[in-house]
Every structure is written in structure tokens, then in C-alpha cells.
């Protein structure tokens, strides 16, 4: 099997999960697709000659890095948008206008009873990004704590903390669906 074929098989096995991971983080399909495509290209161009056993950790590390870059850009964009909107919005002092929309964090009010998966997606999307990624990489992607810490570029104890907090929040959010 050629290197290109092995790489293609690896990407085929991980692309859908990577896409969902990015989609949970960005809540945007197009951005998630761009991030995954970028991560695929980066792995292929820079690390294809590495040992195949290292590809998974490298791929998710690249993916995390791309998501982080997206979040930084998003943060700047949102700040600018808020600044200009604030400057132009005459109702900015209206307390009702300032009230945050928390419906995404309350799946029981948003989805029908019994739709565990819809509730799960809403609860996962509402998690802080680090908790979300630690949880998904550990539970879903099956990375061990060390690999997750390497992918997230944080300590192993941070991974454990993020995971435990995420699980607790999900447990609370999904209590309704039990």
C-alpha cells in the first residue's frame, strides 16, 4: 500500500469525527469543513512521512490548533462587531436587549422529550471549549490522557479536570432524558 493510500485510509477513518469535533466547537458547518480540510492538508504535507502510528495524535493536535486559531479570529471579529453594534445601537441600555439567550444550554426547553441525542448535542455545544474537546477526544476518539494532553497542549491533570467537569455538566443537562 502506498503512502498516499495509507494516508487516505487514515483520513477516511477519522474525517467524520474530526468534522463533528470541529462542528461542536464552531457551531458552523462551513467553518468546520474548512478546519478539517486544513488539518488534513497539514498532516499530509508535513507529517505523511512520519510513522503511521503517530498520525492520529498529530492529526488531532493539528485540528485542535486550527480550532484554536478559528476561535481567536472569531473572538476578534465578534469584539469588533460588538463594538460597532454598540456604537450604533440606541437600545443598548435596554436590560432585555442585554439578556443572554440561554436556550441552547437548556435542552429540555428546546428539544422534544426523549430525544437524547438532540439534548446531548445542545449540551455539548454549550460546554466550554476546553471541556468539550477534552471530553470528545477522550470519550469518543478514545485518546488516552497523555495523547489528549498532547493534542490540547495542556497538562494531563488539566485533561482530567476538564473531562470531569464536562461529564458532570452533561450529567446535569441530560438528567431530563434519563
Amino acid at each position: 500500500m502506498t503512502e498516499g493510500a495509507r494516508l487516505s485510509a487514515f483520513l477516511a477513518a477519522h474525517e467524520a469525527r474530526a468534522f463533528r469535533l470541529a462542528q461542536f466547537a464552531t457551531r458552523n458547518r462551513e467553518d468546520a469543513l474548512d478546519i478539517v480540510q486544513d488539518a488534513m492538508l497539514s498532516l499530509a504535507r508535513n507529517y505523511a512521512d512520519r510513522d503511521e502510528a503517530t498520525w492520529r495524535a498529530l492529526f488531532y493536535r493539528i485540528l485542535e490548533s486550527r480550532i484554536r486559531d478559528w476561535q481567536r479570529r472569531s473572538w476578534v471579529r465578534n469584539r469588533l462587531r460588538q463594538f460597532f453594534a454598540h456604537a450604533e445601537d440606541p437600545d443598548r441600555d435596554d436590560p432585555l436587549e442585554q439578556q443572554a439567550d440561554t436556550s441552547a444550554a437548556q435542552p429540555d426547553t428546546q428539544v422534544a422529550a426523549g430525544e437524547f441525542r438532540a439534548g446531548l448535542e445542545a449540551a455539548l455545544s454549550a460546554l466550554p471549549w476546553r471541556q468539550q474537546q477534552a471530553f470528545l477526544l477522550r470519550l469518543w476518539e478514545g485518546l488516552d490522557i497523555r495523547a489528549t494532553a498532547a493534542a490540547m497542549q495542556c497538562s494531563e491533570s488539566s485533561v482530567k479536570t476538564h473531562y470531569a467537569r464536562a461529564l458532570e455538566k452533561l450529567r446535569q443537562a441530560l438528567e431530563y432524558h434519563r
Partner: protein
Amino acid sequence: MSDDLETRIRHALEHSLHELDADTRRRLAAARAHAASPPAPSLRWWWLPAATLPLALIAIMLWPQASPPPDPSLLLETVLEEDADPDLLLTFDLLLAEDADETS
């Protein structure tokens, strides 16, 4: 309870993979094919052979003209071919004598 919840979550997430829409799958497959294909030969240096000749010409034109100092004897021969002025001949004689002194 957490173990049960984790299992349910894992199953739900796995199930969600099968429900990705066709367009998303198609675009992921296209991205994969693009990434796994060998990179096209780089065109970064295509201009190098074409630029060699003009660069060489410019270099030759700008090269400092390090011509050797004129040989006084050759100058004298040139002068002798013309209608020589005796004063000029004397000047050249002196010039040759000085040159001989310097070389010795």
C-alpha cells in the same frame, strides 16, 4: 451511573456520524483526496533558467572595467607611426626611462 451515561453518549455520537448529509460527506471525501494526492511540482523556481541570461548580461555590463595601464612602449610605437613631434618623443623617452627605473 457515569459509566452508563458515557456509554450512551458514545453510542449517540457514533450514531450521529451515520447521519451526516451527503454534501458534507462529499466535501470531506474531496478534501481527503486532495490531501492524500501527491503535491504538484513546485513552480517556485520556474523563472530561474529564464532569468539567467538577462542577469548574466547585467552582471557583465556592471562589472568594473579593470583594464591594465597602458604600456608606454606601445604608446611610443603608436606615436612613431605618426608625424612625431620631437618634444613628444623626448617626453616618451623620459617616460620609458622612469618606467625602467621603477621596474628595476
